[in-house]
């Protein structure tokens, strides 16, 4: 079973058209193995991207180099999945 320990979901909010196009380009980049949860829609609208742990630091550095601010929406995807699973099993019991 695939697990997601250490995967984070970063939220980026493009502030202008330039940032918008930079974020749009991220969606096409393969090297960071990104999983775009919520794609680019417009200035001031959030973009959520799941990032695996082995590319997390380099991806954050890349965002910094582009002056793209981000926040961490989910610190550890697997922790939430574990809670979700426990809740389902508990409800079933």
């Amino acid at each position, binding site marked *: 079973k695939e697990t*997601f320990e250490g995967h984070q979901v970063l939220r980026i909010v493009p502030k202008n058209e330039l940032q918008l196009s930079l974020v749009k380009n991220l969606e096409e980049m393969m090297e960071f193995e990104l*999983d775009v*949860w919520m794609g680019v829609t417009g200035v001031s609208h959030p973009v959520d991207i799941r990032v695996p742990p082995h590319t997390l630091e380099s991806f954050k550095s890349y965002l910094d180099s582009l002056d793209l601010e981000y926040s961490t*929406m*989910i610190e550890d*995807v697997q922790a939430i999945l574990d809670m979700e699973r426990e809740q389902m099993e508990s409800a079933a*019991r």
Partner: protein
Amino acid sequence: LAQPRNTDSFDYANYHTLSEIYSFQDMLVAENPNLVSKIVIGQSYEGRPLNLLKFSTGGSSRPAIWIDTGIHSREWVTQASGLWFAKKIVTDYGNDSALTTILNNMDIFLEIATNPDGYYFTHTSDRMWRKTRKPNPGYSCYGVDPNRNWDAGFGLPGASSYPCSETYHGPSAFSESEVKSIVDFVKSHGNIKAFISIHSYSQMLMYPYGYTTTPVKDQAELHALAEKAITDLASLYGTRYRYGSIINVIYQASGSTVDWTYEQGIKYSYTFELRDTGTYGFLLPAKQIIPTAEETWLALMALMDHTYKNPY
């Protein structure tokens, strides 16, 4: 593990496996034989039934409303909302005058698990799975984005031709049995008047087109109705939605479901993106299921009521 004995004891406030969804559908049919029936419109790639619940008070070839949930498998709140909608329809029929009137004149079709292989895979192997589960010859990755696989601007910008992409459009339009089965059903039915395809999670209600900036000929009406629907939705918990054509609200998206349904003549073609708390994304906690479904239902009622009152 305790199994619900009927749809009253079913736990709508929690997420459920595919087998529990199938069991729920059978229970609902058994409990409401004069209102609900189950139609199997096809099989998924891995051979699972594509079940459609038909809510009908009789008649033949009545005008109909289509609702599907969960074509993207990891969007669990969508399938969970579909279960709640199904129960809501049977409990409100005879009690809510607007829904009763609709059902006395139209049928409602509801496909709760639109991508059963993917949904099963999210429970057993990869919670983040989004696509279908058909292998891509020559690649180690699987699946097609079933919301880019329709014959409406198929293969244009706004979908990927790379099989490992999450937005891979597939080798050809309707290559996915999960999509083709809906296409065959819609064409053979011939009298579907509204088609509502439900996703999560970015709080949007959109109408065609996604593949072109050309406005649909019914743009003004669809826009006004979307505004009404999201206003009704917001009246419950204040959840704010964006609305408009797909290409204006998001970026270009080609080969999508409601672009095709609109081009088939189904004027009231809409796609939802359900609520976003800004905290959990697709991992929306189960306690959010019922509020999400409740508020979405208000918007669905607005769309369905308008469809009934504006025959074409």
